[in-house]
């Protein structure tokens, strides 16, 4: 069975935001906008696909347009493919706007092929999608018929069924179809009685193969790709709800189903999005991230609580959808699965929950951890990594010269006297040196062009001051003139 959606993109776009009158999606190719997909009303006014937008506006001034979103279109087709699996075990996408389903052995469940096709058409029509479907013994024949009116070809009548269709229906390229028309072969029935060898020599092997596929002399199975696990669940409600506790109860039910799905595939969610559809067709979204992959419904519900608290329910919410856009592999382990085990969640889990809730409010890139790095340059001797995406690392223990506990961008010293300075001013405080230790010479890493290190090598001094603070100062002997003593850190 082949299903063709002639106006998939515009139908999908209009489903979300309906609009009356001629409507088209535009796609920018090169320097000009072209019509990508249009609705019935626009076609009736004489507009065609691929027409330049300026021309279309000249023909039909009241044309409403929106930019086309190819990614969304593909997502719409793949969700239709998932939906179509209610009719057949194997459903494959066919081009950008069609589906191909292998319904062998299925029709009797729906009461025959006729009834199955009617059921499918009725459901798609109710969803607001224009579709043409055809049932035939071969993939090629079903494809051809779906693009030319649809219908059912009974068993064993393939040649008669598609004979009246133009040769273009055979999925041959434009040049071949044109060449066939030039020699007077306009319909498929003209091709069938011809000898194959001259046909192949003149028009290529492709045409003969397509013809054989349509007539069932060449096998062509439905290549249904393996269904990627889909981590999304939804729930529609008979009556709109508005109370926070009701939303949380609905969420708890959805979470249970989603987490079971995640557990079955050994995955954990890294982000989760809850979409709440209001009765006025508005959508509210709550999205949360996790510091570690997670699939524990109770802990996830606790993280959603704050977001759900802030949403505006309007006149009520009548549908909930929960899905995990980002998932990561998560090996099975003994994790909290219910209120009894909840009390025993380890400190790691509780810490991950804290990092998740902090990250959800201030941003995950602001929850950091210090990781050691291989560099002698003080600024690059450690990196600040987001805690959610890194593991704690013990810094390698090595005998090294003392380092300050705080590091700040170099601050120039004023009123410096002597080398090392006997007296200096820093942050509007004057200091007198008690003891100085150094110098420790650090050279810039020539393979990085770091603007802070353009002044050349640095001689670091540990200065103990009479006033108390112990500072980490440096001196740039290669820098040209001026004040070139800086404070860079402070010791314990």
């Amino acid at each position, binding site marked *: 069975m082949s299903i063709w959606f002639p106006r998939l993109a515009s139908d999908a776009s209009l489903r979300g935001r309906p609009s009356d009158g001629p409507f088209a999606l535009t796609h920018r190719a090169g320097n000009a906008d072209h019509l990508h997909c249009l609705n019935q009303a626009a076609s009736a006014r004489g507009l065609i696909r691929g027409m330049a937008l300026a021309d279309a506006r000249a023909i039909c001034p009241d044309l409403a347009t929106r930019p086309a979103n190819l990614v969304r279109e593909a997502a719409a087709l793949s969700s239709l493919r998932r939906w179509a699996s209610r009719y057949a075990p194997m459903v494959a996408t066919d081009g950008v706007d069609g589906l191909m389903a292998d319904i062998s052995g299925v029709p009797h469940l729906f009461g025959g092929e006729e009834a199955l096709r009617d059921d499918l058409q009725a459901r798609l029509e109710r969803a607001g999608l224009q579709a043409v479907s055809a049932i035939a013994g071969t993939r090629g024949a079903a494809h051809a018929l779906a693009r030319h009116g649809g219908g059912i070809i009974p068993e064993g009548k393939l040649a008669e069924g598609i004979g009246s269709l133009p040769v273009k229906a055979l999925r041959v390229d434009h040049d071949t179809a044109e060449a066939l028309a030039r020699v007077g072969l306009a319909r498929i029935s003209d091709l069938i009685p011809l000898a194959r060898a001259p046909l192949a020599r003149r028009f290529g092997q492709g045409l003969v193969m397509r013809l054989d596929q349509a007539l069932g002399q060449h096998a062509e199975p439905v290549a249904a790709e393996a269904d990627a696990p889909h981590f999304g669940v939804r729930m529609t409600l008979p009556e709109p709800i508005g109370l926070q506790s009701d939303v949380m109860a609905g969420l708890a039910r959805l979470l249970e189903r989603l987490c079971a799905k995640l557990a079955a595939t050994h995955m954990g969610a890294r982000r989760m999005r809850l979409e709440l559809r209001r009765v006025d067709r508005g959508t509210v979204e709550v999205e949360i991230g996790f510091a570690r992959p997670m699939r524990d419904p109770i802990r996830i519900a606790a993280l959603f609580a704050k977001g759900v608290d802030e949403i505006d329910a309007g006149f009520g919410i009548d549908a909930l959808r929960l899905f995990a856009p980002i998932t990561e592999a998560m090996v099975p382990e003994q994790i909290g699965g219910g209120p009894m085990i909840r009390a025993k969640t380890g400190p790691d889990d509780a810490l991950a929950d804290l990092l998740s809730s902090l990250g959800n409010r201030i941003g995950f890139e602001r929850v950091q951890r210090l990781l050691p790095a291989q560099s002698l340059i003080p600024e690059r001797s450690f990196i600040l990594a987001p805690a959610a995406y890194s593991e704690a690392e013990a810094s390698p223990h090595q005998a090294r010269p*003392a380092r300050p506990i705080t590091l700040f961008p170099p601050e120039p010293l004023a009123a410096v006297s002597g080398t090392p300075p006997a007296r200096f001013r820093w942050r509007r405080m004057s200091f007198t040196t008690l003891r100085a230790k150094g110098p420790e010479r650090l050279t810039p890493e020539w393979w990085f062009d770091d603007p802070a290190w353009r002044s050349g090598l640095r001689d670091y001094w540990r200065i103990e001051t009479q006033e108390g603070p112990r500072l980490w100062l440096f001196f740039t002997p290669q820098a040209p003139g001026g004040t070139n003593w800086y404070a860079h850190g402070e010791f314990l």
Partner: protein
Amino acid sequence: MLLRDMAPSDPLTLLRARVHEAEGRGRRAFALFQVARHLGPLVWVLPSHVPELPMLNGLPEGVGARLHLIRPEGEVDLLWCVEEALRSAPIGLVIAEPEKPLSLTAGRRLQLAAEAGRTTGLMLTRQDAGSNATETRWLCEPKAGPKPDSTLHAWSLIKNKRGTLGDWTLDWNGASAHVHMVSEARERCEPARTAQ
């Protein structure tokens, strides 16, 4: 007396499940000293625009792996982060550097959060920017040491809700939890001093 029993025996130990404050130039040293006395993960809340970062190689052994730096933007987010971290049980010590003076409400809320999560908090405040709700307040100043590379810290307890005030000078180099008290001997029963 009940209150006296709850007070820690070592004068430099912070009372658990309460929020404390430290001010003065040596407040970060005081925080790191307390870090060595608290096990478990550490949370250090630092406003995102503060240029002074802890340097991993300079921190005492083993602290770097436990440390989580939280760098929120704005004072409200900072206080929220501190409260959230205090409420969470597995954290050993929460250190925060608020920029503005802590209001009485904020201080009280943090105390309640610390009691709920049984977590100790330490706020590194500017001079006279603390809250009255704090359990103890420490004034920390570094002092010039008598011998090279010795680090003297003069820590004085200037506010204490359940106990006496006091001054301590100690020598601590950051390498271990051991300290060397260099305060001069005092009378065993000193009269309680009131806060200035």
